[in-house]
């Protein structure tokens, strides 16, 4: 069994504070991390490899410093990784990113499943993994809370999707792109041995030419959307009104205020 885990390195939003706003964090915000949602994808790949034999490998498109996050994934137990990096990839939108990832996946030989996170916490688009599936022409299973059954010989998988209206069970052929939710299971911590091994790992890189892509398919040139302006959210102009008094009295006042707000 071979699982390819799509993993992105992102800023660490746990560092947001009064003195570190979103703009600062994006520009200079200290150490980058494995996109938190992708940790669940890594965990899923490792659990499948344990249960069925085989391996999970990482595929990342990003700047050269993404090797840091890749090493975390290797330390967790992934058996290999490829970093897709090139100046030409900068400012790729989700579809250009999907093109780059797809070109690399096509060069990886046989694979059984592609795993992805729910979204990347920087761009927050939740588009890339669907687009990889669309470009590869294989099924996409989103919002996966549980893998109910998988048979890599018969090439089938049954998953539970946690969607707005309830829980849907879907059976699909493999290979497929599976995007997992937090419910799939808590990600393991990197092991001590894993960290030591990952520290020494040499991570293969591929660029535009290696992937057989042309410059106008990727980066800003190959993208159909641009972020033309990024700002902090408008300051909330709420004036707090404290409701005082004993519970019964305060409840009466607050209920009247809320009824007057017409929010009930």
């Amino acid at each position, binding site marked *: 069994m071979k699982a390819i885990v799509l993993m992105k390195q992102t800023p660490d*939003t746990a560092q947001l504070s009064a003195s570190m706003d979103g703009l600062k964090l994006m520009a200079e915000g200290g150490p980058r991390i494995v996109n938190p949602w992708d940790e669940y994808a890594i965990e899923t790949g490792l659990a499948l490899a344990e249960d069925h034999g085989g391996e999970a490998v990482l595929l990342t498109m990003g700047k050269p410093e993404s090797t840091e996050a890749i090493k975390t994934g290797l330390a967790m137990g992934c058996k290999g990784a490829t970093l897709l990096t090139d100046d030409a990839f900068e400012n790729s939108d989700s579809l250009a990113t999907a093109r780059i990832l797809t070109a690399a996946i096509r060069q990886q030989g046989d694979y059984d499943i592609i795993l992805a996170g729910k979204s990347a916490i920087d761009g927050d688009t939740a588009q890339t993994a669907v687009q990889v599936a669309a470009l590869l022409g294989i099924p996409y299973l989103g919002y996966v809370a549980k893998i109910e059954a998988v048979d890599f010989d018969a090439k089938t998988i049954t998953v539970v999707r946690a969607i707005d209206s309830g829980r849907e069970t879907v059976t699909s052929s493999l290979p497929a792109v599976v995007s997992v939710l937090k419910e799939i299971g808590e990600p393991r911590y990197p092991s001590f041995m894993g960290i030591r091994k990952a520290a020494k790992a040499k991570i293969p890189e591929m660029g535009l030419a290696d992937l057989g892509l042309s410059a106008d398919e990727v980066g800003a040139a190959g*993208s159909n959307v641009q972020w033309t302006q990024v700002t902090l959210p408008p300051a909330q102009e709420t004036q707090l009104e404290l409701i005082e008094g004993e519970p019964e009295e305060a*409840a009466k006042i607050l209920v009247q205020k809320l009824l007057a707000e017409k929010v009930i």
Partner: protein
Amino acid sequence: MANIWTLVEHRDGAADSISWETLAMARKLADKSGGSVTAVVLGDGVSELAQTAFHYGADSALVVDDPALKDYRLETYGAALAELASARTPDILLMGASDKGREISPFVAAKLGVGLASDALDMDLDGDSLIVTRPVLVGNLIAKITFSDAKPQMASLRRRVFPALEPDTARSGDVETVSVTLPETKTAVTGFEVAEGEVSLNDASIIVSGGRGVGGPEGFPTVKALADVLGGALGASRAAVDAGWIPYSHQVGQTGKTVQPDLYIACGISGAIQHLAGMKTSKVIVAINKDPEAPIFKYAKYGIVGDLFKYVPALTEEFKKELGK
């Protein structure tokens, strides 16, 4: 003159309210540019949804009625919409940022090779070109997205940020029924379990949430009683979820759900930046917390400094009386 399409979303023929919010947004854009709005209805036995779409502001409707579209599946719905959009090239193609819309839209955008902005908070036009405002970095930044000339320009609209129009039953329009070639499917829906007895956080116009201040699983019924009397959904902070007091599906915040109800009542929640990321754009926020310095009060319109176990039951009782329950 932007020619705008919107997808009408439904489950077994029951429309999802996000469809009408998206239609209202499309109407706003079309009116600004002197253009038109076409509602796209995909499903099995769902053609009457086209009439409802006219009441909510559509000028015309495109209907694909096909037994193969009975169950929603990305591969069939995505292929149907991609085929229609590729044959007729609307200028703009919109849908709701629901669970379905957030997977159909990137699928179609990939098949057509066009741009997409998901989870829009607002949309506008520059000439006939779409501009989308959307949150990035889990709501800690707002980005303005512009598009290349590739058509259609696509976006999905977040729930509850733009009101639907009042339905006007006198409105009507032309319905065109078309057929499309659907692909052989590789997926099958084999089971469905409705989220029962609970108001979903996604749709809720009122949410009452509990945090670490609730003290344990035995504290949550107090919070839930208030949610129930208001017909609202029950939310929670990550601290309460991580402690195992309440399932993850209730978590609001950066690593939980992003919600935007009319009323959000936070009980025993401090207001950490990651919790705020999921709820701070709620219309009216009420905070009940015994610590007057809790950051949540900076975002609240109304606050009570005190013990939630005294004040929450009092509120529940008072609402019962006022709402005649």
